[in-house]
């Protein structure tokens, strides 16, 4: 098996996760795809150099996150025109139940908007722990902060997401 085959076999199954991580690091759909591509390219270069991880998934997530962070800084310096593209991407989905899909798309784009309203470090904490399944200790190592800081970023981010979705947060407030 060539390096390339081994690499693809080990990593392509994680593309959905990497894509979702990238979705949380940069906003415009074309930037998301660029970031995923850069992630795989950087990973493949490391792989060829025999820098191969024990666990592929957290490795890819980390690469994506680090590339995304520097990229995000560059991108956020330029004016944004994104609201629409969030929605455009979200309506792609449906085949069967279009009405339900449309509802889901609306809710999803609201969720993305809510997520983008979070400070970067809260969004990163949520991306690592809730999306990618990192322990808070691993997330702390990744973010270079004490675990207590991660816990607080994580919780504040979760709470903000919940409160930014008023329909859903009502379930909590009504209790």
């Amino acid at each position, binding site marked *: 098996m060539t390096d390339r085959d081994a690499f693809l076999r080990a990593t392509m199954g994680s*593309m959905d996760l990497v894509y979702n991580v990238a979705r949380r690091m940069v906003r415009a759909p074309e930037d998301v795809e660029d970031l995923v591509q850069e992630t795989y390219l950087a990973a493949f270069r490391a792989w060829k150099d025999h820098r191969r991880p024990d666990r592929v998934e957290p490795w890819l997530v980390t690469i994506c996150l680090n590339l995304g962070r520097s990229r995000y800084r560059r991108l956020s310096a330029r004016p944004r025109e994104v609201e629409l593209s969030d929605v455009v991407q979200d309506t792609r989905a449906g085949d069967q139940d279009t009405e339900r899909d449309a509802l889901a798309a609306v809710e999803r784009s609201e969720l993305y908007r809510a997520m983008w309203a979070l400070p970067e470090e809260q969004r990163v904490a949520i991306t690592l722990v809730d999306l990618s399944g990192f322990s808070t200790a691993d997330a702390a190592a990744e973010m270079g902060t004490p675990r207590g800081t991660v816990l607080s970023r994580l919780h504040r981010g979760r709470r903000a997401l919940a409160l930014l979705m008023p329909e859903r947060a009502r379930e909590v407030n009504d209790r």
Partner: protein
Amino acid sequence: MMTPRRMRTHDPERNAAEYVSGEMGGRRVRRWFNAHLLECEDCWREVLLGRLGRRLATDIREVAPSSLRDRVRAVIAVESRDAVERPRRRGLRRGRRQ
């Protein structure tokens, strides 16, 4: 009820973050917190919000577009072709080590 030492400081934010992440350590601590949740409005509210936030954060997972998969495969293919050509030039230096 005995309060485990590390839980004596009441910190709804940290407690809720650990609880919702399934990382509240030790059976005694978990038992204490479960009981505490019944009587502490603050912690209960934070746990509910934390749970909802975590659910929302994972609800919007998407499938990567198949065009992106093709694009990544193509880029890796190009990169591995480059790699075949480049080391050949470096081959002499490398050969010694191998």
